[in-house]
């Protein structure tokens, strides 16, 4: 029988024990590590490279979704949470299954079977496109960014952002004394940041309204930090709209 490895990430010890207990029925699944928060989770996944993870959503400092964003090639994810409002978001994050606490042994077995079918076959994960689209439409705005810096995980308050700059497949997040990289698109940030506070002034730039020092029409805006950011024609239009000029 094929062997699988997994990591359990949940801040409640009894919730982790339950998963372990349910997993005893599967002799081919080995629990590599139990983690009580997302930071440990990131490390454990990097270290063990497991086939799957069991992931809670609400956890200290960074939640399960924020943790997933920090992982380059995430393993199969089975969410375990008491919240049903996250189901859409879970599928957007390519979750394999979503277990609502408290879940039964039968439901758990179904999730595992699904996982084995999926990992066993070479085909890609099922297309969740429709679900993802629906989730994107109703998704809430960001209140902070979680980024990885060297091996550390950093929680960035939005007010620390000086500007965002497109950089290949990544976005450069500029703060007063650091530049962070995050694998997202400009469109993602444009949609998930409050349009009143963050303005996309250029195809490759988003700036916070509070950082604007001076506008040098028609090509540049100068930030408080002294940095000159290019603006496009449509960007200038948006800028004027937000600032009411």
């Amino acid at each position, binding site marked *: 029988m094929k062997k699988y490895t997994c990591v359990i990430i949940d*801040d*409640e*010890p*009894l*919730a982790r024990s339950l998963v372990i*207990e349910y997993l005893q029925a599967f002799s081919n699944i080995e629990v590599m590590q139990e983690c009580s928060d997302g930071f440990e989770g990131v490390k454990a996944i990097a270290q063990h490279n497991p086939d799957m993870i069991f992931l809670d959503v609400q956890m*200290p400092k960074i939640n399960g979704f924020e943790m997933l964003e920090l992982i380059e090639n995430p393993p199969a994810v089975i969410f375990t949470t008491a919240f049903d409002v996250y189901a859409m978001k879970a599928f957007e994050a390519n979750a394999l299954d979503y277990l609502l*606490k408290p879940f039964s042994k039968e439901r758990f077995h179904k999730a595992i079977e699904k996982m084995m079918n999926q990992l066993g076959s070479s085909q890609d994960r099922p297309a969740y496109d429709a679900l993802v689209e629906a989730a994107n439409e109703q998704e809430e705005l960001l209140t902070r960014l979680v980024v990885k810096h060297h091996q550390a995980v950093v929680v960035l*308050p939005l*007010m620390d952002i000086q500007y965002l700059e497109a950089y290949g497949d990544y976005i450069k997040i500029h703060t007063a004394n650091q530049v962070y990289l995050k694998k997202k698109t400009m469109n993602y940030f444009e949609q998930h940041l409050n349009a009143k506070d963050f303005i996309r002034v250029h195809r490759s730039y988003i700036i916070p309204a509070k950082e604007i020092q001076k506008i040098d029409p028609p090509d540049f805006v100068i930030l408080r930090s002294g940095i000159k950011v290019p603006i496009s024609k449509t960007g200038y239009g948006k800028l004027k709209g937000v600032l009411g000029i």
Partner: protein
Amino acid sequence: MHIYLLVDFGIDPKIAVVDSFITHFIFALTSFIIYITLKYYQPSKENFFYIRIWALLLAIGNTFVIVNALQYIYVSDASYQSLLDKSIPLRFCYQILMVATITLIQWLGNYMLEQQGDGDRKQQSESFTKEAELYNLRQQLQPHFLFNSLNSISSLAGSRPEEARKMIQQLSEFLRHTLRKDEKQLITLQDELYQLNLYLEIEKVRFGNRLKSVVLVDENCSQLLLPVLILQPLVENAIKFGLYDTLGEVEIVIQGKCMDRKWLQISISNPFDPSTHAQNSGTGFGIDSIKRRLYLLYANNDLVQIEMKDNLFLVRINIPQL
């Protein structure tokens, strides 16, 4: 009847008909005036005196108009004139009776309609209160807390059934207390702390060693009163912020003091991270709703204070002892 009476007094039937017509035409006009007036201005019970004066004036006016009109029309008929003069008091009495009756009927009709409207409004505001109460109950019964607790019980049931049974009992007792209906009900600090302890025990089972609590309450305060379920949402808030805003061990400190037996002061503190706290939109729903409840109960907006220093977040509430 009017005509028959006049004919009986020896008046020409033709004159009697005209007399009757004028009298009742004027009366109908008056009724209409009363109807219109009361429709737009319904005096309260206290102002009923004015209604009587008004009705009296209307009756006098009516009699005057009727008599004058009849005198003018039949100025040459002497026998009718003398009868008319004699009938003034009678006509006046008749007018007063009719005007008063119409006014009273109209007023009562309006009064009843208004009462019904009042009733509707009362019912509406009562249902609003109830909805708010239910909303509160839902808030207190955090589904997140409930489902995670049930998950912990499910876990314990396999490994440590005795503890699972204990937790079910604690959870039930806590829920029963939470489902109490009367928001205004006062409870002794001792009883509230007992309930709070149930809640803390459940949360400690959930979070294991991460959660610690210290309860420091002056002996002599234990019989002081506070509204039910004031402390639990605050402690819930403290746990939530403490556990999700920091890593490692979290100690919740609950302190109770009494000031001259006139005030009961309770403070609840939890560790927090000032750098990430700002983005969690400040105080949180729990504290706001408690502030609102205390305001509704004591009409005082300063009963809840928040302090943040170093890595400690502290909420202090003052409960007046009436």
